């Protein structure tokens, strides 16, 4: 039973190696975009690295979850039975703009860069669904949107819980420091 499950997992991983690698890299790039939040709060280099990796894993998980939602919707509404590995391999390239997410660290234009990257990812996903699964663009939009929204919400949640709190904490500690 365990052997069969591991064999299955190995088959998925081999099919999805490029897709999974891309997901992990995008997660790391997203995590890197808020590196300064960690540096600002005077974490040690070891803490910074471990926090970066942890954030990258959580963000990668969010992207994998979005792909799984796409898979379920494809099976339910388009009748396309596809395993997760194959899906990741086919839809993974839609995440390529996310490799540049680290540039969200740039000052002032960060929101613009993030919005453009998310829009490109969604657009790529719709196009790839249309090409690989022979669904119309309208159907592809309906199928891709729930997964996209879930991924976006999870990333926003990580942003609010981790990074933005770190920046707010820093801003509030600077004011009393200035007074001391």
């Amino acid at each position: 039973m365990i052997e069969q499950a591991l064999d299955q997992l190995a088959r998925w991983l081999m099919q999805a190696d490029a897709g999974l690698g891309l997901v992990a890299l995008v997660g790391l790039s997203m995590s890197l975009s808020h590196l300064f939040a960690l540096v600002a709060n005077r974490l040690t280099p070891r803490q910074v690295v471990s926090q970066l990796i942890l954030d990258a894993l959580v963000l990668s998980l969010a992207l994998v979850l979005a792909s799984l939602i796409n898979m379920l919707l494809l099976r339910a509404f388009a009748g396309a039975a596809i395993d997760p590995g194959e899906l990741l391999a086919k839809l993974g390239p839609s995440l390529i703009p996310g490799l540049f997410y680290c540039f969200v660290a740039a000052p002032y234009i960060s929101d613009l860069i993030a919005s453009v990257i998310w829009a490109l990812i969604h657009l790529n996903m719709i196009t790839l669904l249309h090409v690989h699964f022979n669904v119309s663009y309208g159907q592809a939009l309906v199928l891709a949107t729930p997964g996209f929204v879930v991924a976006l919400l999870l990333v926003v949640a990580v942003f609010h819980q981790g990074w933005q709190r770190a920046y707010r904490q820093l801003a509030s500690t600077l004011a009393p420091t200035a007074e001391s």
Partner: protein
Amino acid sequence: MAPLQAIRIQLAGQRRLAGVLGWLVLLSGLSSLVISLHAGPLLLSALSPADLALVLQAVAILGLLLIPISGVISVTSQFAFWRGWLGGLPQPADIFLEPAVATADAASTRCTIVYLDGIHQSERDHPPKVAAFLALLESRLPSHVRLFKGLETYTVTPARLADDAGGSWFWRRLFALQEHHPNPWVSLICAVLVQANNVIKVGISSDRRYGPILNYELALKVAQRLAEQGFQPGQPPGGRPQELVLLGYSGGGEMALGMAEYLRRICRCPVRIMTFCGVFSGNQLLEQVGEIAMIVGDRDPVAAFGRIAYPGRSPLLPLSNWNKALKRGQVRRHCINGLSHNGLSGPFSDRNRTAVIAAIIGGL
């Protein structure tokens, strides 16, 4: 070797490597531009329209990548200073520990104007037209008001851009090219690069994530320089309380708004803000700051652009810090007819400088 020191050395090496890589990308972009400018008609005719389109696409992509990369490199230097890697961050409580040298000027001063220059600033000394403007302003100030000039607005360390940690060699070469290169295009590109660096600093100051750190660092630097000039925080014994007025031109207006609240706390005195032709976000903490006087020109497209570039100043966001300040009646606006952002009808021109100086003195 102590582990902390080893980490510092390693991080310093990484910072140098990152800096070198960043500048390599920047220089390769510049050299592509120069080659394309100098390319003869023969080379251009040898390229098919498809090749030209490809080259243009590559240049556009490089440009798109360079903007965020420059921003990230600039933020890195702010954070290196914040972490104490560039010589340590002074403690606010230590700045005014040394008893100030009591000069006759310092004793009679009740108001100190701190001038923050626009994005053209690269040296501690101001350009000739700005220096002439400041000299005229200084001569017309009341006796109890002192002007503090020559402050490097866009570096967090008390250094010129040419001595800024991480990029000093680059800036020195850039200034040499700007001043001595016979080709005016090269001089122009170098001037644009200096201004681009300062624009990034304005962007960092207005950024909700990085702004607090940069503004705090700048406030510390200004407080240090004021302490050197004999400034006494709070109410000196037997003396009158001093007031600080931050006078910012163009991007200096953003820096003034950014550091005002921190400077008020560090120097323990009231702080007011005056901007002329100011480009600023208004994102900062303004509640405890005194009046904000804006001197604007009716022919100034750059200052007007600030209202579009910074959403916080749009009336569509009534809860932004700037709009709250407007509601409190904290902002006063003085419009000068015929004033543009720079050049022959700018605030430093012979035509308009008297009107601008009169508006500044009238607002004191």
